[in-house]
């Protein structure tokens, strides 16, 4: 009854855009990764040559690459659980039957998510200032001497993690909140009849019910945290001592600062592998859950 061609008319514009502006460049990235495309090549295309796996070999021998990879993993491994904990904590508070003004609070806690990253990173840059920042002032009131948050290689990434938790926890909070509301009330009633404390109820009722949501949300957050870029770009420019240089920042520098497009494409490929591993893990989880 439906004319078979019509569907194609509807889908073609979007598919064409995706093919030309997404899949084609992705294929191009794969090719670029095996060339020595650099500024000499931009001056004269005859200066491009295929170099096989050299970009990848060199990448693995570049300490800065490992540094960037390490920083990115550190950011993700510490940042994701902290973000999730903040999300769950906030969601629990919001879900409490005793809480008032719920929708007001939900809006306030969610607000940082929609803000422009560059702008709010700037705010935090001032809040984290060693001498005039309010964070150190607050710590000073508690008797803690000033911390050079963004100037010290050991505290710069933690400071960015702190900022990221603030910026992002609202997103997962909303999802966790929905999951909390779907936990049947009688599970809690049964638990409290058994004399379970609030903590025991959380451990044995809430957490198990949340587990699928948390796994799913955690993996999405992980994938997002792998793409760290604008935060260090605005707050530290990758410093101090490259302690906040991320994989994506490294790719940006190689590619769009120094125009070593070949090497940058090799970095992009590594980023792709990381994402692939994470999503592959997610698919495996989903399958196991279904089984």
């Amino acid at each position, binding site marked *: 009854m439906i004319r078979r061609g019509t569907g194609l008319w509807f889908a073609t514009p979007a598919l064409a855009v995706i093919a030309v502006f997404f899949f084609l460049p992705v294929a191009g990235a794969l090719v670029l990764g095996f060339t*020595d495309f*650099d*500024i*000499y090549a*931009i*001056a*004269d295309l005859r*200066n491009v040559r295929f170099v096989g796996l050299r970009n990848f070999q*060199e990448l693995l021998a570049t*300490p800065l690459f490992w540094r960037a990879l390490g920083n990115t993993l550190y950011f993700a491994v510490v940042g994701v659980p902290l973000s999730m904990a903040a999300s769950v904590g906030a969601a629990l508070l919001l879900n409490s039957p005793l809480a008032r003004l719920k929708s007001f609070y939900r809006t306030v806690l969610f607000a940082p998510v929609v803000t422009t990253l560059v702008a709010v990173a700037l705010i935090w840059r001032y809040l984290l*200032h*060693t*001498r*005039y920042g309010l964070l150190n002032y607050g710590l000073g009131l508690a008797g803690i001497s000033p911390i*050079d948050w*963004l*100037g010290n*290689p050991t505290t710069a990434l933690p400071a960015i993690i702190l900022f990221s938790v603030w910026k992002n926890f609202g997103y997962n909070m909303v999802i966790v909140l929905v999951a909390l509301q779907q936990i049947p009330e009688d599970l809690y009633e049964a638990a409290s009849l058994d004399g379970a404390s609030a903590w025991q109820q959380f451990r044995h009722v809430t957490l198990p019910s949340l587990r699928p949501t948390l796994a799913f949300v955690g993996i999405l957050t992980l994938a997002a945290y792998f793409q760290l870029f604008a935060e260090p770009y605005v707050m530290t*420019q990758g*410093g*101090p*001592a*490259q302690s906040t240089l991320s994989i994506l920042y490294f790719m940006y520098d190689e590619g*769009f*600062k*120094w*125009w070593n497009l070949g090497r940058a494409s090799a970095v992009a490929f590594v980023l792709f592998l990381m994402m692939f591993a994470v999503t592959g893990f997610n698919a495996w989880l989903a399958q196991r859950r279904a089984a």
Partner: protein
Amino acid sequence: MAGLAVIRVAACALALAALVAGCGRAGEGTTLRFWAMGREAEVLAELMPEFERTHPGIHVRVEQLPWTAAHEKLLTAVAGDATPDLCQLGNTWLPELAALNALAPLEARIAASRGVPRADYFPGIWATNVIGGHVFGVPWYVDTRLLFYRRDLVAAAGYDHPPRTWDELKAEAAAVQARGHDAYGILLPLNEYEPLLAFGLQQREGLLREDNTRGNFSSAAFRRTLGFYVSMFKDGLAPPVSNSQIANVWTEFGRGYFAFYISGPWNIGEFNRRLPEALKGRWETAPLPGPEGPSASIAGGASLAVFRRSAHPDEAWQLVEYLSDPAVQARFHALTGDLPARRSAWSAPGIAADSHTAAFADQLERVKPTPPVPEWEEMMTEMRVVAEHVVRGDTSIEEGTAELDRRADRMLRKRRELVAEGHAP
């Protein structure tokens, strides 16, 4: 139906915005896009009305590039075929853009013009604009790095003259620091490579070797330089911070948070403008201390370069001529403190009378250019990074310089290949 209303509102906003953007466009005539950096860009805006009045039909749009992002923006523009008509170009960046084939050769225009007499320029600076027999830039202002210091603090610490040698610099910085509270002797921002480069150029041995195709950072001379640089941090004389962590360099200099600062001539203007009246005459400049006495510094400065892709090269050249006029150069100096490239502009009363420029005149006699390779800026970034790691104790001077040579050799590989094939840019 709220949704459709939203989309309709969005569509209206879009139409409105397009309308506004359309109305914003200027009238007929030629519009020159001129890229300039930092303070120079702000001052240019003040100079342009007169140029536009004397050159009817030409409108100049000055765009300000932040110094820290200028280099990548220039390369991106070249890569994306989005270059402006002309720009202010640091002369260490000139070889790179010339290698990219992005700049228009100017020798024919210079020969035909009376506004740019070569004999009136500092020869050393002019030489940095000549690459492969072509002139790719006209020096606009000259620049080198030397010492800014608080004369009052140095005198209070018992010294009647600024330091001339590395040892004196450290001794005076230590003496000043010992008297201060919550203060340092010297500020060497970790995000700037220029102070270390300036010290490095003071050594007789070059920073690159083998026809500029390999790094020479492991040489005893550079290891000694790095050792001196790092010792100022190790001895606690310099805070291990970057510029952006000092909330405000001028305020902190005024407060005496540090007494020595290695910087360029633009800061004469900035300090004059931003330091409180009470500090007038209490700060001074001095030639950069050398290993054994007054020595070299960077042959810096900026040139005016016209891009090959410019659609209005004739108009762009007129602007170059205008900015090269000695009277305009003198005015430019008055506004920025930048030192004119034309010698005849140096006799202007504003320059001759300013005690702060004397040290620069002295230092400019002893400036050295950096190797003219396109990879230079990237290499300097690596040098800065490695130096920061040594300062923070992550690595030793021996390991750091060896690593720096490895990185330099890798960066220069393509250049080595092209040199071997006989067509290096």
